[in-house]
């Protein structure tokens, strides 16, 4: 996917994975964000951020020592 933005927040702890995600979402036109995080707190806080920010958490995968979150930060209809 060409408009996919990769945010690598590995090595950062709460609240930084969510801050990195929000910074990326605010500064990029890409609607798809892939976030890599190894802080287990992200498993709770990324879904909470998506709910609070009306984003959609498409998928969470465990990849070895970290998790990969796939997020649709804006709705395709432009909301």
């Amino acid at each position, binding site marked *: 996917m060409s408009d996919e933005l990769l945010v690598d927040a590995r090595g950062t*702890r*709460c*609240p930084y994975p*969510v*801050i990195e995600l*929000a*910074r990326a979402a*605010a500064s990029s036109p890409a609607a798809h964000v892939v976030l890599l995080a190894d802080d287990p*707190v992200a498993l*709770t*806080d990324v*879904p*909470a*951020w998506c*709910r*609070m920010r009306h984003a959609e958490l498409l998928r969470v995968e465990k990849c070895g020592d970290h998790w990969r979150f796939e997020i649709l930060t804006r709705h395709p209809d432009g909301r």
Partner: protein
Amino acid sequence: MRPASPQIGQWLATSAQRAWASPAAGYHEGKVSQSLLSESAATMARLFGAGSARFEPSPGSAVRSAVMDLAASEHFAAVATSAVDADVVRVAVRQCADALGVPHTTLSVDSEGRIDTPSLAAVDRPTILVTNLGNQEIGTLQTDLADWATATGAAVVLDARCALGWTDLPDYWDALIADPRAWGGPGGACAVLTRSSAEPRDVDTEPFDNVPAAVAAALSAEQWMSVAGAARESARAHLATIGRRLHHGLTGIETHGGGPSALPHVLSISVLYVDAEALQSALDKRGFGVGSGSACASRSGEPSHVLAAIGGLTSGNIRVGLPPGLSADTIERFADAVIDVVTEVREEMGTAWL
């Protein structure tokens, strides 16, 4: 927990003079101690509508005593807690499970932190359930367990530490756990309040003997229960004011607590893009002591399991328990302080624009 009652020093000093002897001592002063201990237990039982009461040195020992005593009088095949009970309760129940050789199950909760119907329906054997009456972090009042307990033959031990006085007691419990520190009373004299007036069967190997703490516990409970009814309404209004001010003054905020089916004095506040430890210490400098459910502000490095269980935001979290008697002015100052401190921390962290 709240600041100690102004009378606590006097209560402890007076009873320490009168009850210096162990209640087990076989001379006059021992009998004085024993009689003060019994009177204090009777006061606790009367105040909370229990058949009898006894004291334990800590919340954990109170939970263990309540569970082991129920298990000594009747056969139970499992013990259970919910996903949002306090750590001290979950640890104590796990210890009981090990001691009894029965499984310890964890019941799941809905998005507000009440034990959910499917997990109650899945309980298929006589169980001792230990759970909170009002949640210690988000204030949610427990679902009514009366029909479930009757249908399944379960015994219910309620961790009522945060709730006593703040809400009417339901009638489905077999035992209640109380901690006088919740109402400004002393530490070291938690109470197990039992529905039945029978003597405990599981007799502790080390009898409770901190009689001054027990006397102060009962006196502080009397004082608290005489004003608790009036405190409820003003706390509920204060909590609503705080919630309204914060939602109006801050973006990226969610709160849990307040409302008709929650304790009137407990509020959990989570804000995006801030470090909870920074919030907590900045509020402390302004004279406001708040808890936190964020990983960075906890000793264990783990986020609040309560917030995680309800899908709440765990970062940037502070939690508030309002003591009674606060003025409207203090509430406004607190709301101003939270808004200022969040704004300042976001500026320092470079996240204000998000």
